[in-house]
């Protein structure tokens, strides 16, 4: 337990010292929110635009922080031999991993708070209708997207390419799922793709807890899809993730 907190402390330290990653993961969603919030009019589908966008960027934030950030961190640490070096110390691999996941959770929780504060400040956005549900959504989002992030890290073998690959996946996903604005005018093909993406369903849950005051299991289908994606990521991660760098 104390080793877990020890490792968590250093993971957080490393995260915030890495300015580029912190900007990409933490500042970028806030910036997008400020921009999009200023562009969109009053209402989106009868709901205040600032609230819809806040929920949307909350979802995008979960994906970049947990999936993008984690995949990039883990691939770089593995390929440069940072993970290998730790492997011959007494630190249990599980402890190392849990610390990395907790660190991601801490970062994203701070991100969510920053989003709410920014929304309040700039656009008088709503506060969560169900605070507990909102906190649950933070955990759910990190769990699902972190599992996908570790799964992606298991498949991506190049430290140079990981950041590009991750963005090529996350940005279109966020766009199709409605993170950056309404999608009901999109062509049917794109909507069909959106209908299988985890972020689409995660956003449904976020709208529920944040605006309607529902619990996170109010829409069981959405919850199941999100969990299924997370489970798929976890299976790939458990089967394929290794600690050693790519062989020469």
């Amino acid at each position: 337990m104390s080793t877990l907190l020890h490792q968590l402390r250093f993971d957080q330290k490393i995260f915030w010292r890495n300015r580029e990653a912190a900007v990409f993961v933490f500042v970028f969603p806030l910036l997008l929110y400020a921009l999009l919030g200023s562009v969109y009019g009053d209402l989106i589908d009868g709901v205040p635009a600032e609230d819809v966008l806040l929920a949307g960027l909350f979802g995008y934030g979960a994906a970049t922080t947990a999936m993008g950030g984690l995949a990039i961190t883990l691939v770089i640490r593995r390929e440069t031999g940072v993970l290998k070096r730790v492997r011959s110390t007494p630190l249990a691999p599980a402890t190392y991993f849990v610390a990395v996941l907790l660190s991601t959770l801490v970062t994203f929780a701070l991100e969510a708070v920053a989003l709410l504060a920014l929304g309040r400040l700039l656009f008088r956005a709503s506060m969560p209708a169900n605070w507990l549900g909102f906190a649950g959504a933070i955990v759910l989002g990190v769990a699902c997207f972190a599992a996908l992030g570790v799964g992606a890290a298991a498949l991506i073998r190049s430290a140079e390419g990981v950041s590009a690959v991750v963005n090529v996946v996350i940005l279109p996903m966020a766009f199709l799922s409605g993170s950056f604005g309404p999608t009901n005018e999109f062509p049917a093909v794109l909507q069909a793709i959106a209908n299988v993406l985890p972020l689409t369903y995660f956003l449904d849950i976020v709208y529920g807890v944040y605006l309607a005051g529902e619990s996170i299991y109010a829409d069981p289908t959405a919850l199941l899809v999100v969990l299924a994606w997370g489970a798929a990521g976890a299976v790939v991660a458990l089967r394929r993730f290794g600690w050693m760098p790519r062989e020469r």
Partner: protein
Amino acid sequence: MDVPQVRHVATLLGHVAHIVSQVPSAIVVSELRKSYGTTEALRGVSFEIAEGEVFGVLGPNGAGKTTTVEILEGYRGRDGGDAWVLGFDPGESPRELRERIGVVLQQSELSPLLTVRETHEMFAGYYQRPRSVDDVIDLVGLAEKRNARVKTLSGGQKRRLDLGLALVGDPDLLFLDEPTTGFDPGARRAAWEMIRSLRSLGTTILLTTHYLDEAQQLADRVAVLRDGLIVRQGTPSELIGDSRLTEIRYRRDGVLAVLQTSDSTRALHELTSEALAEGRELDELEVRRPTLEDVYLELVGEEPESAQ
């Protein structure tokens, strides 16, 4: 857990092997084999390292040194043979074993954004009984860089950091894969002093190196690996003793003459009396015993023993 039993067996093995010296073995390796695809990196390597011993592994690039060391550290599986490290099977790499070993990898990176002190602190937190972080930093000569970020360190300073992290858990057994590569001569001497003092405290050390003087200075025994086989092992003086050739060099009429002989007293006597009789001076006269390096070059040039 059947660990005590396992340890008992290995200790027994050690006793059998060291029946003469009565010193238990820290490492027992027999007929170790490892292939990467079609490359046979190890083709039956056997050696033992007694507790408290400094054991040097020498050999040209690709000989299988890192492969051997990484199998013993628990990083790589073996395809055949037995290995015991402090009584444990390194293939299972149990926590009790990791608690007692220190590792300097041939190549590794650390988080570039932490400072030297923070990195030591982070690693110290992984062990039950770590050494004092500041002592270790002083010991490896990084006191002035204590608060410098890892990314700002020079190559040799990074290597010292690797060494510090290997020591921070206060290990009984140290694996050093080319630990002084990139060190300036002063730093190398300092590292040698440190390794000697660790040895005097009873730490067992498995060291690979391309510096033959390093092996000669530090190792109680060395093994020369070539193409996945040990071509010779013994104390440095045994290895040097194997080769009885002494070299006599001098300059005659500006031309350098090199004479190799197994009977140096007679050769030197004949040479000097001839020169005296002719009233000539033997310029730059030098009599040189072979160094470990000469023996090594002889060894890695010949066919491996078991392949003959």
